[in-house]
C-alpha cells in the first residue's frame, strides 16, 4: 500500500470522522481492539489522537507475547538451560521477563543456545543443522500463527525429523472474548476484531458472542480508513441498536476463513484449556499436540511441566490486557518500566499496549 492509497486518503478519513460524530449523537463508545497490530496501527496512523472525546479506545489481550503466561515463560527458560537443547523462537520472546526478571536474552548470556527465526519453517533448518540436539520451537501466537506451526510440524513428521519439537503455547481469541464479556466489570461497547486471525477462522466464531452479549463487532483491516470505518460501523450499530458481526476487511477476510489452514491445525493439534497472563485459565482457549504428533511435543519428549509461577511484582500487565487499566495509569509506566528496561511483557513487545503508549503517547505530552 502506498501513501497515495485511497485507504489513507486524508479527505475521506476526515469525512468518516465527521460521520462517527454524527452516529454517536453525543453518546460514548468504549471499544476494544484485540490485535497487537491494531494497537500499533491506531497510534501510528494518528487515528487514536483524532477520535472524538466520546470514543474511548481500550487495548485488549491481542499481543501474543503479552498473553504468554508467567508459568509458560518459566517452562521454556528451564528448557533453555538444559544441555542438548536449542531453542528456536520469534524474536519477540527474547526479552520477556520470567521469574526473577530472567529472560531468554539473559539465558543466552549464560550459555543457552537460542536461534531467532522469522518463520517456524526456518526452525526446521536449525533442526537439520543440529542433528545431535533437540530443537524446540516456542509455539506462541493466535489462530494466525498456529497453522504456520502446524504446517511445519506436518513437514517435520513427513521428513522424519525427530529432533524437531514444539512447545505449543497457542491461544484462541473467541474463548478469551467470551471470558472478558462475562466479566461484570467489563464496560466494552464494541469490538474491533483482529483482521488476520479472522482470515483463518472467518466470522462465524464471533457470531454467538455478538448475540449473547449484544455487542457490535467489526473485523477490521490496518489502514487508517479501515480503522475509522470500523469505529463508524460500531457507532452505527449502537445507534441503530443492531449489534452483530460485520466483516469490513473483505479484501483479506472471507466469511468462511481459510479452511485449509483450519484443517491442518485440526490434524496436528487438539483444543485444550490454556493459561493467559492476567486472566488465568480459559477453557478451550489453547491447542495441545494431537496424539499422532506426540513425538514432536516438547512437553512429552523432554518431560517439561507447567508449574505455578508468581506474577511479576508490581506489574499491572494483567489489568492492561483486560482493558481495566490504561498503560499510563500503571505506577511503573515510564518510570521503572520502559522499552529499554521492561518489567512486564506489554512493554517488551512492539505490539504491546504499554510499548505503544510509551512510543506514541509520551510524544504528545
Amino acid at each position: 500500500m502506498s501513501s497515495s492509497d485511497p485507504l489513507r486518503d486524508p479527505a475521506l478519513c476526515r469525512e468518516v470522522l465527521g460521520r462517527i460524530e454524527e452516529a454517536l449523537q453525543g453518546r460514548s463508545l468504549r471499544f476494544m481492539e484485540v490485535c497487537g497490530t491494531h494497537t500499533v496501527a491506531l497510534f501510528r496512523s494518528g487515528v487514536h489522537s483524532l477520535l472524538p472525546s466520546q470514543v474511548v479506545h481500550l487495548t485488549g489481550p491481542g499481543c501474543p507475547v503479552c498473553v504468554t503466561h508467567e508459568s509458560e515463560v518459566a517452562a521454556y527458560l528451564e528448557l533453555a538451560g538444559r544441555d542438548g537443547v536449542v531453542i528456536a523462537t520469534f524474536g519477540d520472546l527474547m526479552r520477556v521477563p520470567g521469574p526473577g526478571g530472567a529472560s531468554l536474552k539473559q539465558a543466552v548470556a549464560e550459555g543457552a543456545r537460542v536461534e531467532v527465526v522469522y518463520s517456524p519453517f526456518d526452525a526446521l533448518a536449525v533442526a537439520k543443522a543440529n542433528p545431535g540436539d533437540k530443537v524446540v520451537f516456542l509455539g506462541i501466537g493466535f489462530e494466525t500463527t498456529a497453522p504456520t506451526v502446524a504446517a511445519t510440524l506436518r513437514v517435520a513428521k513427513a521428513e522424519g525429523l525427530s529432533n524437531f519439537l514444539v512447545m505449543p503455547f497457542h491461544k484462541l481469541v473467541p474463548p478469551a472474548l467470551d471470558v472478558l464479556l462475562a466479566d461484570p466489570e467489563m464496560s466494552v461497547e464494541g469490538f474491533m476484531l483482529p483482521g488476520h486471525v479472522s482470515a483463518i477462522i472467518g466470522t462465524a466464531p464471533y457470531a454467538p458472542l455478538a448475540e449473547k452479549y449484544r455487542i457490535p463487532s467489526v473485523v477490521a483491516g490496518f489502514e487508517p480508513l479501515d480503522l475509522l470505518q470500523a469505529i463508524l460501523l460500531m457507532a452505527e450499530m449502537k445507534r441503530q441498536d443492531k449489534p452483530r458481526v460485520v466483516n469490513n476487511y473483505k479484501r483479506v477476510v472471507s466469511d468462511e476463513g481459510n479452511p485449509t489452514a483450519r484443517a491442518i491445525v485440526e490434524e496436528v493439534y487438539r483444543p485444550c484449556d490454556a493459561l493467559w497472563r492476567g486472566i488465568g485459565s480459559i477453557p478451550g482457549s489453547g491447542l495441545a499436540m494431537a496424539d499422532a504428533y506426540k513425538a514432536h511435543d516438547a512437553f512429552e519428549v523432554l518431560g517439561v511441566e507447567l508449574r505455578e509461577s508468581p506474577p511479576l511484582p508490581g506489574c499491572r500487565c494483567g489489568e492492561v490486557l483486560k482493558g481495566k487499566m490504561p498503560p499510563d495509569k500503571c505506577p511503573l509506566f515510564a518510570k521503572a518500566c520502559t522499552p529499554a528496561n521492561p518489567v512486564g511483557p506489554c512493554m517488551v513487545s512492539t505490539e504491546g499496549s504499554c510499548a505503544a503508549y510509551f512510543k506514541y503517547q509520551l510524544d504528545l505530552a
Partner: protein
Amino acid sequence: MCLAVPMEVKHIEGEVADVEIGGVRKQIRLDLMGDKPQVGEFVIIHAGFAIRVLNREEAMETIKIFQEGWNLELV
C-alpha cells in the same frame, strides 16, 4: 510477530513461492493455501506462510461504498 504483509508472487515451485514488495524478495510457503495463488497476485504473508490472496476488487468495493453512498443501513 503478528505483522502480516501483502507481497506479490513472482515464482512458484511446489509449496514454495518467491514473493516481492518494494524490492524486498522473500521465499515463503504455500502449505496453507487450498487454491494456490497465481504469479502476479498479491498474497498476505504471516510468519513466512501465505494465508490468503489479497482481493483487490473487494478493497475497491469497500472504498466505493464509503465514497459514494454512505449507506450504512444495517440489515
